[in-house]
């Protein structure tokens, strides 16, 4: 293969990786702040895509505009989800959140199946199908949009965590929740907002993913696995790590496609995640060994 084709491949892997990183931010927040792996994460993303679909077909607007409704809606869903479900089961032991988020994943998938049938759906718009030629390279506009959004969302979350009071509380609570309590910071309240923030990011990711790929009610698990891969590759508790982890996942997927064909690229990606879990479970920037 010519050099230019390889570079093109790597470029698109990077752009796709941005999209995956965007998808993974929400999971990273749950994992880093609430210390919960939200198995329903991918399903929430797909939920956002379907919500967007409904709004787009009803109001005939661009999917981006639908985010003005979908994003705040998902924030509220996240807040309530944390408040009434996760906060209730957190004190019950570390297995309960696993079972609960798994059950929720099943519920969301089947609810979407019931409401929207198993037909393939897409949020693709005509302008995303145009062919971009840049220095002889061919970046995919669908991926590029995801990549740019990822950087914007990353910056936004980063600034929020660094500069605002709530953001600082969100960094303090997972470090030492009792000390935070003694300063008057209520962990549950912090978690509620963090969950809202997480699902806000998930909403944006879901819509982007819906614009990039066709989706079905059961597409969720694939995204939670890839997001999980991004979070693990980058290291738990590190937002920057998740960004890098996303790039790793993106490259892994395109590499898998190039080496083994599109039929096996997902399998290759999953195997990569398993290998990372085996050799370096704390990830690149991880905090725990």
């Amino acid at each position, binding site marked *: 293969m010519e050099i230019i084709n390889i570079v093109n491949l790597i470029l698109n892997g990077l752009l796709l990786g941005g999209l995956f990183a965007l998808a993974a931010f929400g999971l990273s927040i749950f994992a880093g702040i609430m210390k919960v792996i939200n198995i329903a994460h991918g399903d929430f993303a797909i939920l956002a895509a379907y919500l967007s679909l409904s709004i787009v077909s009803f109001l005939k607007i661009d999917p981006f505009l639908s985010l003005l409704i979908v994003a705040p809606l998902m924030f509220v869903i996240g807040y309530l989800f944390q408040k009434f479900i996760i906060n209730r089961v957190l004190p019950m032991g570390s297995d309960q959140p696993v079972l609960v988020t798994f059950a929720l994943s099943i519920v969301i998938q089947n609810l979407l199946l019931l409401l929207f049938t198993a037909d393939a759906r897409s949020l693709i718009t005509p302008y995303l199908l145009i062919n971009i030629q840049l220095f002889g390279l061919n970046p995919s506009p669908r991926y590029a949009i995801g990549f740019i959004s990822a950087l914007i969302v990353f910056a936004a979350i980063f600034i929020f965590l660094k500069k605002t*009071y709530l953001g600082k*509380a969100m*960094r303090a609570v997972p*470090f030492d929740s*009792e*000390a935070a309590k*003694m*300063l008057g*910071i*209520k962990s549950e309240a912090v978690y509620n907002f963090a969950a809202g923030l997480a699902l806000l990011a998930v909403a944006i990711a879901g819509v982007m993913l819906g614009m990039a790929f066709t989706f079905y009610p059961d597409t969720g698990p694939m995204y939670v696995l890839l997001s999980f891969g991004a979070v693990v590759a980058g290291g738990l508790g590190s937002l920057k790590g998740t960004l890098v982890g996303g790039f790793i996942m993106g490259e892994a997927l395109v590499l898998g496609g190039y080496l083994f064909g599109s039929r096996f690229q997902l399998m290759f990606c999953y195997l990569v995640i398993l290998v990372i879990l085996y050799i370096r479970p704390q990830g690149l920037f991880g905090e725990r060994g």
Partner: protein
Amino acid sequence: MLEVNGINVFYGDLQVLWDVSLEVNKGEIVSLIGSNGAGKTTLCKTIVGLLHPKTGSIKFMGKQIDKLSIPDIIKLGIAIVPEGRRLFGNMTVRENLELGAYASKIRKNIDDALEWVFNLFPILKERQNQLAGSMSGGEQQMLAIARGLMSKPKFLILDEPSLGLAPKIVLKVYEIIRKIRDEEVTILLVEQYAGHALENSDKGFVLENGRIVIQGPSEKLLKDERVRKAYLGEE
């Protein structure tokens, strides 16, 4: 200012404090002495609202606080510097200080509080962008105390401020404690090793196995045989 009346505190079914009463008047420094496991930290946690007594009451400036939430208690003017400092090592000095003002109304006027605290602890001003986890023990204790002061409390609980610190640093810490009293903050000093605490306080209470066994003016306690044997060990 602070009245603890006959409180009984439980961890689940296990009783840890039995009929504990103590009093701190405005402007005083009061010592609470006791060995490991006597219940000192439990008492601190109960005052600040982390735990609630099953029976008995706690009054602060006349108001009953034993059923209030921690943020409400902090807003009334109580703050705690926890045992072991419990700083947020992943955050900077300045961020730790800012979080100290989280629950109080000070949040809006945080620059005043920061200035006050930086005046008391110039070294913290120097290191304000340093990660709290990378500082020495003495500096961390300064930061912990400073963080407790950020909510401009009227009443400050210091749980074992000299723990794990070199003697020279302990002297510095007590210098600061005296300074804080001058800034009109009433102090409850909790220590395992009684020497410095009693020397720097007006009166003291000794807690043993969850019960107050001795109390009185600090001068008297320093001379008390039981206290000398159990809590003044090697001078």
